């Protein structure tokens, strides 16, 4: 019973402000005759018609696929290269100047070049998303690996842990919290670049759809597209958070335990229960 209460309370905290905003939007736009600010009810109707699931496969799915391909390859390469650079001083020192230069380039500035090189297909979009999301993951991974307590490495060495085991069971978990900082930062970059890559020279995708609708004065459709983008970004964040909570459960729990004020707070809360 208390468990259900706790879940309900968490949900209430999570959704109270959005709910108030949505209700306000609904009421204020309810009688709107403006072409540019259609009533929320109509936006939601269009949302339902468009995305569940008439244009889902033609516009939403390609976007999500590009995002997944770009982001996941950035995560793989960023973490892999980051661990290698974090552990190998000469590699870090050789590659670092190039990394510093490339990450200073706004990924959007690469769009024209990417179109030149890869055309306007999915590979260009995934490529731009990859390029933009790589740096936060890479730099945070390097940082996380470098800040591992040297004593932990001595323990590993003294017990003759193999290199492979050391990377998988010591380096990755130890750098995990910092890696997730990078993953979170990259996710928002990835969503921005998803949109940007579809606004320039594109024939499908949510960004393309929104731009197209605006140009054709289908303002309600434009709003529906924007709502989808918002929902998409929100769900992606939620998904990443769920993964983080699973992977870093030890970290979150040990941090909770080591913060006395947090402990007393939870005690107070359970007393209220």
């Amino acid at each position, binding site marked *: 019973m208390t468990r259900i209460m706790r879940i309900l309370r968490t949900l209430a905290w999570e959704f109270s402000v959005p709910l108030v905003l949505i209700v306000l939007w609904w009421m204020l736009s309810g009688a709107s005759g403006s072409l540019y600010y259609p009533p929320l009810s109509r936006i939601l109707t269009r949302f339902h018609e468009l995305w569940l699931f008439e244009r889902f496969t033609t516009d939403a799915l390609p976007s999500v696929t590009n995002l997944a391909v770009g982001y996941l390859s950035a995560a793989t390469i960023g973490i892999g290269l980051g661990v290698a650079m974090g552990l190998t001083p000469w590699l870090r020192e050789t590659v670092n100047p190039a990394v510093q230069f490339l990450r200073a380039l706004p990924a959007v500035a690469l769009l024209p070049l990417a179109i030149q090189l890869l055309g306007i297909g999915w590979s260009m979009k995934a490529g731009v998303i990859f390029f933009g999301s790589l740096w936060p993951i890479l730099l945070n991974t390097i940082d996380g690996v470098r800040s591992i*307590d040297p*004593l*932990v490495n*001595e*323990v590993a*060495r*003294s*017990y*003759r*842990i*193999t290199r492979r*085991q050391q990377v998988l*069971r*010591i380096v990755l*978990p*130890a750098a*995990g919290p910092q890696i997730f900082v990078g993953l979170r930062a990259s996710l928002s970059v990835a969503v921005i670049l998803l949109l940007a890559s579809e606004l320039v020279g594109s024939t499908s995708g949510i960004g393309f759809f929104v731009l197209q609708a605006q140009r054709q004065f289908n303002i309600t459709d434009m709003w529906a597209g924007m709502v989808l983008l918002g929902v998409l970004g929100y769900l992606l964040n939620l998904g990443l958070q769920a993964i983080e909570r699973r992977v870093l459960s*030890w*970290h979150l*729990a*040990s941090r909770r*335990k*080591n913060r006395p004020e947090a402990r007393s707070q939870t005690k107070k809360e359970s007393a209220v229960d």
Partner: protein
Amino acid sequence: MTSPTSATAATPLLSVTRLAKSYGTGPDRRQILADVEFTVGTGDFLTIVGPSGAGKTTLLRCLSGLLKPDTGDIRLSGTPVDAPPAGMALVFQDYSRSLLPWMSVLGNVTFPLRSKGLRAAERESRAREALAAVGLASSARLYPWQISGGMQQRVAIARALAYEPQILVMDEPFASVDAQTRADLEDLVLDLRDRLGITFLLVTHDIDEAVYLADRVVVLSGAPTTVTAVVPVDLGRRRDQVDTKARPEFVELRSQVYRLIRAASHDKDPK
């Protein structure tokens, strides 16, 4: 060249000969270990004690193969130590950093056994045995940050036990726990030595502890460090925190070690 201490055993389990180590170069060069020499026989409990700054940790890192000495020879069962040997397990002072917080207590103990090429079932049974030996059989599923400091150091000891080393090397293992826990852990270590016949090498700055635990105490000078004396401790195998420490022999040994350390640090402190 023959070692002067080689007379103590035909082939000592661990031998340290003419060990020297310095840090830095040029005018910044600091000689830490000048000439350190001792041996540990199988079944021995050897403690190393010295004034602070005597390079105890440097010595330990050298003889465990973690740090390369400038000169000198370290052998475990006659084999030169130039990398961490499979026959040695280390217990570090700082248990809160030496245990891996993302692994359970059991995971921490089984993890090093992977490099021994043991199957998962055997790793687990060995680890459970070791945890039982240190009195933590029921804490296997907990995480290091969920248990007390004394218990964490027990886990670190269990990890070393499960590794089944020829020699168990401890670097000030009880320096960060409270007095009562410290006494408990000292007795645990003596008990393990009695039951399992493990060879121990323990570094400490605490003279009481050094005498209480040891068969022989190696007294170091201040840096640049040499071995000032090796004091045999003839207090028998049965030791007791109250009775042993009240014995006149114990008090005399403690004073002797204390005088040696004080003399050594005066000699080396002309500035």
